[in-house]
């Protein structure tokens, strides 16, 4: 396999709220790395720098009734669904107002029809069960699962795909193929392709090469509708790039690989395409996140009783 590369999108900026959301996620993630660097965060975190457009694009295709299953790299998924940077940051910092009272932290979040877990592959069978439930109780709704390319190492992924295809369940698997799993390039952990894997189970596969939010929605809308109404599981594989380290300070990639990821970054491209509009939006979201950080950091610790 070759390294995935994101075809350069046109230089048109996304619509206002999409651009704002992209930038909100970007600045949220940068703020986390900054907080870690200053020793103000504990534990670990995985930022989605470079991949923000994936959940932003999908947001336009998912509704309230749909379930979303996120993974370890889930801040963008959460923010695209709820636009709640304060609740998420409070969760990560263990402060009052945390979405899950500081128990789950960055990787374990449950809110309404959104759930994440830090164990790779675990969510697929669960999402399949949710899809079975939805098929009976709310036809037209689907279960959407985000996984990385590395997570295809787990057998549970295959067991779930087989079930979903066999029982014609409304399951949407979104693969953020960023060419790497922690420190392992895809070429060193995957034989064959994601496409062939999906097809082997009779699930549909669609590759997304662009990072243009509107184009992605146009491409995917009819396919997602088939998932909803014809119970045909769909695997959407985004060719994307991880800009930052796997978690923090653990990037052992050669500089040219990191440079290639940076060359594909939507942020730089949009900044150059329309400096005035981009600059204003960028400043607004940067300031918004800075204010959230200051406000949340000043809150008292989250309260929770293990025995309750």
């Amino acid at each position: 396999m070759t390294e995935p590369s994101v075809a350069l999108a046109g230089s048109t900026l996304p619509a206002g709220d999409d651009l704002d959301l992209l930038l909100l996620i970007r600045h949220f993630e940068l703020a986390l790395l900054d907080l870690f660097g200053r020793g103000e965060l504990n534990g670990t975190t995985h930022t989605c720098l470079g991949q923000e457009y994936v959940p932003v694009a999908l947001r336009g295709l998912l509704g309230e009734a749909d379930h979303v299953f996120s993974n370890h790299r889930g801040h963008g998924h959460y923010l695209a669904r709820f636009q709640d940077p304060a609740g998420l940051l409070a969760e990560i910092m263990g402060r009052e107002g945390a979405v899950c009272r500081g128990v789950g932290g960055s990787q374990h979040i449950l809110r309404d029809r959104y759930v994440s877990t830090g164990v790779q592959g675990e969510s697929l069978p669960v999402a399949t069960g949710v899809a079975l439930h939805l098929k009976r109780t709310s036809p037209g709704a689907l279960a959407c699962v985000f996984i990385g390319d590395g997570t295809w190492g787990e057998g549970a992924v295959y067991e779930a795909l087989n079930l979903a295809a066999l029982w014609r369940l409304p399951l949407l698997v979104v693969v953020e193929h960023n060419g790497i799993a922690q420190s392992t390039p895809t070429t060193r952990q995957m034989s064959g392709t994601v496409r062939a894997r999906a097809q082997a189970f009779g699930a549909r596969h669609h590759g997304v090469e662009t990072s243009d939010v509107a184009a992605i929605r146009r491409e995917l809308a009819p396919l997602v509708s088939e998932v909803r109404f014809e119970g045909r599981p769909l695997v959407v594989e985004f060719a994307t790039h991880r800009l930052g380290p796997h978690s923090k300070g653990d990037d052992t990639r050669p500089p040219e690989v990191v440079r290639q990821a940076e060359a594909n970054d939507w942020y730089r491209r949009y900044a150059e395409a329309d400096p005035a509009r981009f600059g204003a939006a960028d400043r607004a979201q940067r300031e918004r996140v800075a204010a959230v950080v200051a406000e949340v950091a000043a809150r008292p610790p989250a309260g929770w009783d293990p025995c309750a």
Partner: protein
Amino acid sequence: MRVAENLNAALHAVLEADPSAYVIGEDITDPYGGAFKITKGLSSRFPDRVLGTPISESGITGLAAGLALCGDAAIVEIMFGDFVALAFDQIVNFAAKSVSMYGSHVPMRMVVRCPSGGGRGYGPTHSQSLQKHFVGVPGLSVYEMSPLHDNRVVLEEMLAAGRPAVFFEDKVLYTRRMHDVGDLFLHDHLAGSGGTAGAARVFLEDPEAADCVIIAPGGMVERAVGAMRRLLLEQEVSCTLVVPSRLHPFDVEPLLPSLRRARAVLVAEESTAGGTWGSEVAHRIHAHLWRDLRRPVTLVHSADSVIPTALHLERSVLVQESTIHDAVLEALRD
């Protein structure tokens, strides 16, 4: 020397001494060298036998069992011990069973390494101590890394036994110094206990003459020694800490003389409550010393709870130095 360096050196030594030995795991090759850097340098020196794998805990543990079946020695690193749950079937239903279920003895030289424990804010699925789930599986040994046991001796013992072992490694311990018990206490090894690696003891002057005996695996040493220090300086209570390397099967007999003399016996571990390793140890002690003990063995463990991410919440669930300290005082109260 840090514990991580000692373990790294032990892995180098095993690979060097035994051309049939493998080390297998996710992200373990250079330059990354594993999530906790324990395998640094191994793949550069032994590229054919140190294999970075896909994210397939069940698959790679089964693969290790296949190597072991052919007479090779296989050491698997599970990135976070929590994920050993994915390999449970391969360990319990194949590797451990194979030693005896075919009617004759089949040696299986295999170690599953599990970085475990909390204290680092990694959250509910990256902080557990799952030792108890492997206690009492026929054919399987359970070991825990300790700052008082040379990992080379321990690894060699696990492999030489010819039965699979799960090796729990407290993540916080990686950064600590070997043999560090502070300036107040001495330490030695008790012959004939806890496998040939023996149980280590930390004590004031005479290990056999303490008010209280605390039995605790390696991950608890720092907290237990901290509690012992405070108990001595503030309460004039003397304790002996016994640190077994092999948790199961557990050799209780060599400990009996000192346990008989103590006014209180505690077993401390980080596991959450319920069906703990400590309850198995306590039962063994009760069976031997029921008439001699002043009171039942005290179990010290974490709360019956998931392990929260936020540091202040995590602290409220996991065993702390103060938990051990308070439990000793309570056990000594008349």
